[in-house]
């Protein structure tokens, strides 16, 4: 009995549509469905095929959950392409850490975009955390150097979160600037940031792969945060990303308030894909 003709074919097509629309990527979806065919898995309904696929995806994402524990004086570097939610996510992380009893400070490392430091400053005031910033147009490396130096000398502060300007991975000058920022941090902190979190927009399609490839050449992320999953996008690109890079996903952004941050959990994430 060939399940891949007739009703079986319909079910395959239906689930192919669901997974592609979740941004898993067409090639990835086709490979997954080919695997199921090769494995001769038996399914009598859409629900059964869905359950087989959920298990496959859970297997792929095995290990993708990770904690965000900063138990020593730490620096957190935040970066990513333009408009993904870096500055807002920093506010959320500051809230998360403050609630956990940490004393947080921020560095306004985006010295280029209009009102970037003003935007972070509003969040700093709302959260009652210290913020290091300088005049518009200052060298970001210098601002970050000064921020880290002050942070090191301030015994009261536990965590320093560094905001950087949005930059496209295709902009060579901005990637070079980012490399300089990382070098400055290594120099003044004596090591890599304790956490280097690349922020990904949940609505991004296959371009996320190129973003991660290029940014990873400068610094390997310790984790991802995927934002804007309170919309209709399902963030399926994380599956290809995890398969390729094995970088954990620490949090998901689910809104514009500083409380809209959730820990990444594999099961609910996969459930949402379907």
């Amino acid at each position, binding site marked *: 009995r060939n399940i891949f003709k007739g009703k079986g074919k319909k079910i395959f097509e239906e689930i192919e549509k669901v997974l592609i629309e979740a941004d898993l990527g067409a090639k990835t979806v086709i490979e997954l469905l080919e695997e199921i065919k090769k494995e001769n898995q038996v399914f009598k309904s859409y629900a059964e095929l869905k359950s087989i696929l959920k298990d496959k995806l859970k297997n792929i994402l095995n290990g993708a959950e990770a904690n965000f524990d900063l138990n020593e004086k730490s620096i957190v570097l935040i970066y990513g392409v333009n408009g993904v939610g870096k500055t807002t996510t920093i506010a959320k992380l500051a809230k998360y850490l403050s609630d956990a009893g940490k004393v947080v400070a921020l560095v306004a490392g985006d010295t280029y975009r209009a009102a970037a430091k003003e935007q972070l400053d509003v969040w700093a005031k709302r959260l009652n955390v210290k913020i290091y910033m300088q005049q518009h147009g200052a060298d970001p490396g210098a601002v970050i150097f000064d921020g880290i130096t002050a942070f090191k000398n301030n015994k009261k502060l536990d965590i320093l979160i560094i905001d950087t300007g949005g930059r496209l991975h295709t902009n060579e000058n901005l990637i070079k600037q980012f490399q300089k920022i990382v070098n400055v941090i290594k120099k003044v902190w004596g090591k890599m940031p304790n956490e280097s979190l690349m922020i990904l927009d949940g609505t991004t399609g296959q371009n996320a792969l190129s973003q991660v490839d290029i940014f990873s050449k400068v610094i390997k992320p310790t984790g991802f945060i995927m934002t804007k999953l309170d919309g209709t996008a399902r963030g399926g*690109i994380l599956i290809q990303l995890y398969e390729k890079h094995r970088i954990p996903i620490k949090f998901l952004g689910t809104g514009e308030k500083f409380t809209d941050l959730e820990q990444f959990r594999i099961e609910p994430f996969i459930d949402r894909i379907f």
Partner: protein
Amino acid sequence: GLKDKVNGILDKLKGKHLTKDYVENVLREVRLALLEADVHYKVAGKFIESVKTNIIGSKILESLTPYQQIIDLVYKEFVLLMGEEAILLEPPKDTLHIWEIVGLQGSGKTTQSAKLAKFYKDKGYKVLLASLDVYRPAAIEQLRILANNNELDFFEDKEKKPVKLAKKARQYSEKNSYDLLILDTAGRLHIDKEMMKEVENVKAAVKANEIILVVDSMVGQDAANIAKEFNEKLNITGSILTKFDSDTRGGAALSVKYISQAPILFIGIGEKIKDIEVFYPDRMAQRILN
């Protein structure tokens, strides 16, 4: 890219008798390339169906150069879908025109609003910029700075309600004989009922002439959902695809055009005030298909 893939398939077909099966195989590869370029599943399907219909109608199977003809048909269908020529909005200069700029969070609305103002000021229009984003920290400040840095007029008012603020901007524009009022709005989710109602109310309150949807060109399948909801609620009259200076294939552009039917007016190609270009459909065809 797609061009190489299809040429690869067609090379395998050289010398073979071109059957319906072979055409199906070629189109399957084209569809896959569209999906990999982030074109929405349904849009890619519809596109392939149209090409298939045209292939059947065009007796391509009997031609001497079927391969090239299939490529040509795909390309033609593409340009048809994207809009056949560049559309430059050029409202008459003697009456006030109001453009409402809408879209998802972070798509580039504020930056594009400033770019549009500069673009049209350079064309001799008297342009006023106004921000209705009373939510995002320092959003109004962001547009104010962009305006001041580029000698663009910026509307200032203490009003905190977006609809009232829009009305006041309109009144001010009329009183001061502006040709063009550009209203930057806050980023919002297409599924946020209240926020969608807000931009509908703004549109009605000022009788906006254009509703321009700003979409990040790196967006994946969600572009279709975004375009559908914004179009149903607001009747989009044009769109701008931003961050086209990235290496995204930009399939979102095809989805937005197909679903909204509104012309893609401009593309954003950088963060600077000059980084805006009129959209040329045939250039986009090459980008998505290549």
